[in-house]
């Protein structure tokens, strides 16, 4: 039987696994720990064979996923039995499909049946995509709140979405889909992966 992780270690390793590669400051920005504390946790996870630390960044090892899964099964048994959460998760699947399509329409536009890169010169088009994104993000409110009743850490997703949307409103459009920033796509992807792990489900093809 796979042993489980204690809570701060789960949070740190979980965020690392969601980000796939991250330094202590990026992890500390999401979990309620200082960068120094995260650094210490990472060193201990590395010593336990669950992470590799190289050149200021850490990556999860292949042993990380099974350990996280075993821990999630234990600490989120209550979430998995919460009918309110499960009903909201059903809706999320639909919202997720709409989000992926909307992200693609931010990156590419249809010109005469051919997809070409969106050069972002059509402010009205971009504005419509952004408002659709805002609506889709808004649809997660109930689910995030329901999850946060079990574990307060889920509330950080609401804060991250709000920060990204505020930046976009201020004209920082990289915050829509940039993979190197805490963009809507980055936060959404991490939320989705986190949700799947929390529920013990696999990602659908």
């Amino acid at each position, binding site marked *: 039987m796979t042993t489980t992780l204690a809570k701060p270690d789960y949070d740190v390793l979980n965020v690392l696994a969601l980000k*796939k*590669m991250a330094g202590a400051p990026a992890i500390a920005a999401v979990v309620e720990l200082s960068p120094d504390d995260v650094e210490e946790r990472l060193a201990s996870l590395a010593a336990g064979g669950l992470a*590799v630390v*190289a050149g200021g960044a850490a*990556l*999860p*090892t*292949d042993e*990380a*996923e099974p350990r996280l899964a075993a821990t999630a099964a234990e600490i989120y048994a209550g979430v998995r039995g919460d009918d309110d959460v499960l009903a909201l998760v059903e809706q999320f699947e639909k919202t997720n499909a709409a989000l*992926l*399509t909307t*992200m*693609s329409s931010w*990156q*590419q536009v249809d010109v005469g049946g*051919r*997809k*070409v*890169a969106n050069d972002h010169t059509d402010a009205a088009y971009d504005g419509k995509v952004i408002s659709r994104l805002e609506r889709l993000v808004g649809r997660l409110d109930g689910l995030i709140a329901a999850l946060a009743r079990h574990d307060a850490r889920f509330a950080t997703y609401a804060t991250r979405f709000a920060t990204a949307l505020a930046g976009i409103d201020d004209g920082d459009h990289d915050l829509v*889909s*940039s*993979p*190197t920033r805490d963009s809507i*796509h980055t936060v959404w*992807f991490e939320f989705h*992966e986190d949700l799947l792990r929390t529920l013990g489900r*696999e*990602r*659908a*093809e």
Partner: protein
Amino acid sequence: MADVLAEGYNVFDTKKSPSGTVKYLESPADVIGLIQSGKLAEHILLVRGGTTTFLAPALSMGAIGVITMSGAPESHLGILSREFQTPCVMTAHLTNSDSRYVVGSTDEAHFVEIARELDGKKVRLDCTDDEVGRVVAD
């Protein structure tokens, strides 16, 4: 006409036509190993598909091209490859085989066959078509 080994969805049109030796990546450890080897830019990366989320570090570290055996251009990996402008052929199938990926009912042999055929081959990606991405022998 160059020998087209495999075809799939072209995630975005690009004149970039990266060439390299195909490297099949099965797990996060394979990705870590490749990044640490310093030889990331010599390889076209082959993964199973849209659910393969462990590829992100390779993309951010400068992967030159990606082939997947499942998944759609609208998937997370498709979105990332456009953001990083990394040419990407998704749900590739071998041109000399009738085996095709079908969501939810693809047996293991399909993936094994593609990995066996492509892994280690010197190829170039042709992503100039707006729909079809091609893996060409180089």
